[in-house]
């Protein structure tokens, strides 16, 4: 996979096309290579591997195809975003859902080839799907969200036809095929590197990209950079404008900003809110509110004072929303407070009816079983930047209504265990975001009992039933909207988690265009262009 020194020198392209070559003045012809920097490290080229981190999902996005993808839309601020409501073909040319919704038949693009030139067949799709549901861990869990759990659900009747059989019809099935997980692997090549101990060629795919996607990784120096090179035979979409995209790892945001402002790099991806708001004065900064993601203040039902509905409401009326939004998020994202009490639509995340009203909060505390207040611990993760300023503001506000909080900082390694797995934090923050953009999917992870992001140990029988009912239901089903509205009503009244604001993904560019926001929050290199537009 690694090019030898000689190979690169021989091709002689490296120095000619690299954006760092200062021989090209800034105003030269549109560039065909870009450098992006990000603080995150890519630790594997294989999303399915145990231990692959979030940043590495970018490889699956750029170097592999899925059967389906999402269309795009222009947001109110003029920036581009994927469109969850528009499913489009990627490797599949067309697809057909049986009337009972249980069988989906895909026709593959006849001219699609892998990067080694061999044709993409339905056997490759089957092998890739089998792999995703068999390797365990994240890949398998995400596949289950779409109703895919066993290899016998997938079949390949002929080379160009791929059939999926579902146990139950669900609106989440097709969108779940457009998330990064079910990517299509060159199974012949993979199998030639598989061993008895490693039937899914995890070792080989960890170091190599063998897909049919728009880019291939030609160089990967762990902890330093990934170099994408365009695959000119890509048929999954319009050929990318960029021939080469380099993703450089730069941990310090101060350094990232210096590089971007000097024009030595063109994109700084996933910047902290503070840097984004400062850079926005000089450069183009996209701050897209992350769909289906909410930064919340959570109250754990396993702890007595928080079992009292009046206490939870008092907290919700005491939170200084605006101050948190300005201090912790620098106003990037969307406010989620001060909405109408009546729920008339199924938009989610949505504004809650709560806002900052200390008089009301005190009144509710007086009616609660804790008129004198109580003591509790407010837990935050040390490596999630927004939590600390938010915690200080919450601590001050709670003191006003008699709730005395001690702030407890939990190191990164332990945060998930303490908050999500053991669910042992009485009062804490949480920031779940669902890939599949439907309210029921959010409820499934964050409000149903026992599920990972329900860090409040919340259980409500009606929510359990309604979530199960709506999860598979089509969104245009006449029953859907009333049930969803009822779910909103319940959780906004019972308040296991108080929505604070919808966070944003910040991307700054200097000399690059075509940036598109995706739900997976990875840099999609396929749409990028060399000049700002």
């Amino acid at each position, binding site marked *: 996979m690694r090019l030898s020194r000689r190979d690169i020198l021989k091709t002689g392209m490296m120095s000619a096309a690299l954006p760092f070559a200062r021989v090209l003045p800034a105003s030269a012809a549109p560039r065909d290579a870009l450098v992006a920097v990000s603080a995150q490290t890519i630790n594997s080229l294989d999303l399915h591997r145990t231990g692959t981190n979030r940043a590495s999902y970018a490889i699956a996005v750029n170097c592999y195809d899925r059967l389906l993808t999402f269309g795009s839309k222009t947001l109110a601020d003029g920036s581009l975003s994927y469109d969850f409501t528009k499913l489009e073909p990627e490797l599949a040319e067309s697809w057909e859902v049986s009337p009972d919704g249980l069988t989906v038949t895909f026709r593959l693009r006849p001219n699609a080839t892998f990067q080694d030139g061999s044709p993409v067949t339905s056997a490759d799709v089957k092998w890739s799907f089998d792999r995703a549901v068999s390797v365990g861990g994240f890949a398998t869990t995400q596949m289950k969200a779409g109703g895919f759990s066993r290899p016998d659900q997938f079949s390949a009747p002929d080379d160009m036809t791929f059939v999926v059989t579902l146990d139950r019809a669900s609106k989440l099935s097709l969108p779940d095929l457009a998330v990064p997980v079910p990517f299509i692997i060159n199974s012949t090549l993979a199998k030639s590197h598989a061993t008895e101990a490693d039937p899914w060629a995890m070792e080989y795919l960890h170091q190599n990209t063998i897909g049919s996607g728009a880019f291939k990784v030609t160089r990967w120096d*762990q902890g330093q950079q990934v170099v994408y090179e365009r695959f000119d035979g890509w048929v999954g979409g319009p050929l990318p404008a960029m021939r080469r995209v380099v993703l450089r790892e730069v941990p310090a945001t101060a*350094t990232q900003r210096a590089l971007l402002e000097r024009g030595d790099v063109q994109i700084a991806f996933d910047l902290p809110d503070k840097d984004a708001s400062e850079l926005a004065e000089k450069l183009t900064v996209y701050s897209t509110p992350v769909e289906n993601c909410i930064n919340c203040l959570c109250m754990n039902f396993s702890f007595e004072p928080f079992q009292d509905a009046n206490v939870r409401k008092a907290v919700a009326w005491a939170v200084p929303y605006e101050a948190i939004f300005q201090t912790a998020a620098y106003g990037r994202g969307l406010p989620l407070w001060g909405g109408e009490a009546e729920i008339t639509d199924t938009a989610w995340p949505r504004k809650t009816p709560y806002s900052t009203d200390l008089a009301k909060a005190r009144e509710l505390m007086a009616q609660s079983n804790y008129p004198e207040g109580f003591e509790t611990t407010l837990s935050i993760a040390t490596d999630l930047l927004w939590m600390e300023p938010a915690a200080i503001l919450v601590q001050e506000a709670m003191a006003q209504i008699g709730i005395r909080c001690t702030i407890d900082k939990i190191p990164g390694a332990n945060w998930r265990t303490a908050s999500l797995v053991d669910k042992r934090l009485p009062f804490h923050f949480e920031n779940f975001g669902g890939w599949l953009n439907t309210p029921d999917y959010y409820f499934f992870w964050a409000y149903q009992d026992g599920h990972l992001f329900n860090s409040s140990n919340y259980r409500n029988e009606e929510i359990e039933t309604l979530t199960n009912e709506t999860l598979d239901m089509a969104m245009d089903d006449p029953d859907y909207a009333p049930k969803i509205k009822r779910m909103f009503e319940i959780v906004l009244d019972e308040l296991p988690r108080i929505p604070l604001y919808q966070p944003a993904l910040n991307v700054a560019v200097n000399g690059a265009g075509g940036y598109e926001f995706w739900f997976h929050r990875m840099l999609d290199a396929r749409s990028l262009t060399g000049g700002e537009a």
Partner: protein
Amino acid sequence: MAAGGTSRRIGAVGSRILQAVPVVFGVIVISFLLTRALPGDPAVQFAGQMATKESIEETRVKLGLDKSLPEQFLVYLGQLARGDLGQSVSTGQPVTRDLANRLPASLELTFCALILSCLIAIPLGVMAATRPGSAVDQVCRILVTAGVSLPTFFTGVLLIYVFYYILGIAPSPLGRLDFLYIEPPKVTGFFLVDAALIGDWETWGAALRQLILPASTLALFTLAPIARMTRAAMLSALSADYIRTARAAGLGRARVLYGYAFRNALLPVVTTLGMVFSFVLGANVLVEKVFAWPGIGSYAVEALVVSDYAAVQGFVLAMALLFVCLNLVIDLAYSVIDPRFGTEAQ
């Protein structure tokens, strides 16, 4: 006589290495226990974004963490016996390979910083000691105070701001090589050495340019202890009886200063150097972050954050071995500088 001295020295080195065995074993046990005692559950960490109880358990089994502690320890010892430091879950590579990639980057930076630091600090300390209270002494004091009081990440960002952002004379702070250049074929892992070995002076120059800012940052930070120690040791050496005797005997000023005083003052300076080396290698993390340097410090911190046991243990063990070697080298340096230390002084 000389041959006898050499064999005695080899014997001394051998016994020192033997003495290190229990230390290293202790480090193995402690690093194993400490990583397990850390808060944070690797199975949760590595089960991925969306996880269920089952997927977390599956991950635990896959990582071999469902076994009892003694069992895990035996497995670990078995691996070590084969020279295998285990597999890092977060990088998906053998820890030995990760260390082999990362350690030279840190060592190269640290060595360059220390050489730079010594080149400035030792003459400065000597001059300050020979003329206490003079302007040179004051300059030394100011530089030293600035060096210790400025945190490395601050100095680093400041240097980038001035030399890269404003003046545009420093190369982009993007790690060890601008990507116009290809890494030299790996022999030692030190780019300066490897590039020199194949005579590729262009790459050598590029690697050196990348090194200047981070090495200066670290050098500024390490100036203080070295300069202060040189000054103090020189002062006490210069006031010693043998210097008075040497001066009374009419020896030349340079001879007195460098032949007698400096040589005697060197011992504490070497000791300080050893200490500075060890804390700089650890304190590198911030400099590595600012300059996107792919070193060992950031590797260890990332491994700790995600509870990557094998990587943390490998790092601690590598450091322990490094320090055993370092102490050995320092002790040998003692006996070269001061024959009285000889070999009996073990």
